């Protein structure tokens, strides 16, 4: 990695990027560095460290919105909006994660079942382009269709289109209570389907190895009734705290971490293929997304076959560099040509996180 700069405002980020553009420097943005290893490895001249942009700029509880700087830690934003009984419905899947990094990787956890991912919660964004131009899209209201929704493009773009410096999110009310129903089963497929297609409105349906955990939140009366429905369907025990490991990734440093997606009818096949590959599995089974840890990535092609048969994909999220060098990290990506054209427009010199993303973008 190259030199590090630590700007404290959008204007400073713009100065830095204008300067970098003039000198032709390759740049990568960094929030808190918790997922800097995701995607393909990059080598750059300059790291733009956003940890100095860590403020919650505005929280309008009555409008259920919060405006934050990209370097703010997700946990700190939660603490702040929590004082008014609200939550930003994004899970902290890696401890210490920043808002910017969460947006760039579209990292999601159990709550995605009920609230979607960052793309669904982001309502306004300020970015600095590779050429140093500052641009905003969206705004401070939940409903807004004026102009293109650039927020969608930057979410999950791994910092290859522009550097996000500020973001506005819609918030959700914090529920009065949460309950978890957990049950052990060798084959969770039917149980997941029973819950997902029920009237219980599960807020999360997570698998961890052979344990299935369903979370519900809301008012005490309503939650009791829903827990009753869920236990009637799958049995299990009830807890008012989350099971261990809830909403975190299953892999350890040195292992290969995968994100596997599928349509719900494919759950059984996907889990069987992962079991056969010797993977440790955790994730949002009820939403069609699970994460897996592998000691060696040999089974990758087979897993891709199975996921593709169920309209999904397998991405190598986190792995040692030498593993990444030996496998296809992103897998097949349709519409890649169009993605390249978008990249060429936003960053014609390919100086933002070069090579990290799909197709070497």
């Amino acid at each position: 990695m190259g030199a590090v700069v630590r700007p404290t405002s959008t204007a400073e980020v713009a100065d830095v990027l204008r300067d970098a553009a003039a000198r032709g420097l390759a740049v990568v943005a960094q929030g808190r560095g918790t997922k800097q290893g995701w995607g393909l490895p990059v080598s750059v001249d300059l790291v733009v460290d956003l940890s100095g942009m860590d403020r919650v700029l505005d929280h309008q509880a009555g409008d259920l919105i919060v405006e934050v700087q990209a370097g703010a830690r997700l946990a700190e934003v939660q603490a702040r909006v929590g004082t008014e009984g609200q939550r930003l419905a994004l899970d902290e899947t890696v401890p210490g994660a920043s808002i910017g990094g969460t947006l760039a990787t579209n990292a999601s956890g159990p709550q995605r079942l009920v609230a979607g991912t960052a793309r669904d919660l982001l309502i306004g964004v300020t970015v600095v382009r590779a050429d140093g131009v500052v641009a905003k899209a969206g705004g401070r209201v939940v409903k807004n269709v004026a102009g293109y929704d650039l927020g969608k493009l930057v979410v999950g773009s791994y910092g290859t289109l522009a550097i996000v410096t500020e973001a506005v999110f819609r918030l959700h009310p914090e529920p009065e209570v949460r309950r978890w129903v957990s049950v052990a089963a060798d084959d969770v497929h039917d149980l997941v389907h029973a819950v997902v297609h029920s009237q219980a409105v599960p807020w999360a349906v997570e698998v961890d190895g052979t344990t299935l955990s369903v979370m519900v939140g809301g008012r005490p009366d309503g939650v009791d009734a829903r827990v009753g429905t869920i236990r009637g369907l799958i049995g299990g025990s009830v807890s008012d705290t989350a099971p261990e490991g809830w909403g975190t990734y299953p892999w350890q440093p040195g292992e290969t971490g995968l994100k596997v997606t599928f349509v719900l009818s494919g759950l059984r096949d996907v889990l069987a293929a992962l079991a056969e590959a010797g993977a440790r599995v955790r994730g949002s089974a009820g939403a069609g997304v699970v994460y897996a840890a592998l000691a060696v990535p040999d089974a990758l092609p087979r897993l891709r076959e199975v996921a593709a048969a169920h309209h999904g994909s397998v991405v190598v999220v986190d792995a040692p560099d030498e593993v990444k060098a030996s496998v296809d990290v992103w897998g097949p990506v349709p519409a890649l040509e169009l993605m390249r054209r978008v990249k060429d427009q936003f960053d014609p010199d390919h100086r933002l996180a070069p090579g990290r993303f799909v197709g070497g973008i």
Partner: protein
Amino acid sequence: MTPGVRAVATRARELLAPDAVIDDRARLRTYECDGLTHYRVVPALVVIPEDADQLAGVVRACAEHGVPFVARGSGTGLSGGALPHAEGVLVVTSRMRAITDVRPEDQRAVVQPGVVNLDVTRAATPHGYYYAPDPSSQQICSIGGNVAENSGGAHCLKYGFTTNHVVGADFVTAGGEVVPLGAMAPDAPGYDLLGAVVGSEGTLGIVTSVTVRLVRLPEEVRTILVGFHSTDAAGAAVSAIIAAGIVPAAIEMMDALAIEAAEEAVHCNYPAGAGAVLVIELDGPAAEVAAEYDEVERLCEVNGAFEQRLATDPFDRALIWKGRKSAFAAVGRISPDYIVQDGVIPRTALPEVLRAMGELSAQRGVRVANVFHAGDGNLHPLVLFDESKAGEAEAAEEVSGAILDLCIRHGGSITGEHGVGVDKARYLPRMYTEEDLDTMQLVRCAFDPDGISNPGKVFPTPRLCGEVPGRHKGAHPAQEAGLAEVF
């Protein structure tokens, strides 16, 4: 007809059924406007493809000959998005109405773009599912139009907008390439191009197939009609409900003038003498709804509700909704002409903005009826006028524009669901800087460098796309080459 259009017509006749290529003036005129009827342009050619191949073939011909094209679904748009181009081709999706696949187990449906919104729900209901975004026009508007406008509806407060319910699409770029965007499973790797296409108002290309999420039908639905003496009181009740951590499926407000119009049109029998009514809908698990209902009833009472009516069966619910859903058309009963405005404010600014609108209306002598999605601050002021009276149209136009300025001043938006289209392009620079608009148009340049897909819409001034320099930097070229070798 320009030589380019003639060439496209020739190609279209090879590809499409004879009656699907229209160039006689009388029939072309049927398509001269969308739901915003005071903008009219007769297109040079209309084509009505039956499938994606035909549609892509026509678009390719347009690209080849540099002919502009405009997609049209059901033509209910309220911002002139489907207004034809005089020297261009109008591509109508009304023969692409197949529901290709309904997969309740996967909570997905795949539909062609011409499929009517409500038909998706009709197809899913027998399986216990429905399609959540419900614009008031849902009995006629198309899914393709919904995607283009990122349409909302009363129930989007709780369930989100079109963009939250569309997971995949087949897409024809302005160059005529057919590309799949998104996927049936979540989080397809790569840029979220679908997210950029949704809401782009047909300016990036045409969707030929749409994969949507289906949502489980709620166990219980309760609809409450609440009468208040003033919009301030009704607004305070809305704020109290939200502050109590309740997210109703819908909270809609109508003011006295809108109520008067609705009464006259559909005899909805709303509480007599109300200065405002709220239509509040709660849905979900029965026990949850029951608990929320008690709370909502109490909060309305505390904030000055003088009458509350609860509907639990579909018939009574429909009655309550009838007044609200017919509100736009109903205004025709009390005014010969009207403008349907669409603006957004932070919900907490509601009392202030309503007061300012009242003053504006009094000053200019222009009546404004108010209907809005109160839960998310999306206002639909209906600005009344009489075209036949000198100066009234201009005054109405002025008030309508001033309302948008009010929205912007309060940190809101010039459109919450009807889109920018041709109507509001000139207002967009009041909301965004030149740099913002330039950046948005980078996307346009990637998808449609020649600017032939629905030109003249959304952006007041098109960006010149220019050549993209082929310079590369850092580790990228080597890596790209390496990747190309390995895979």
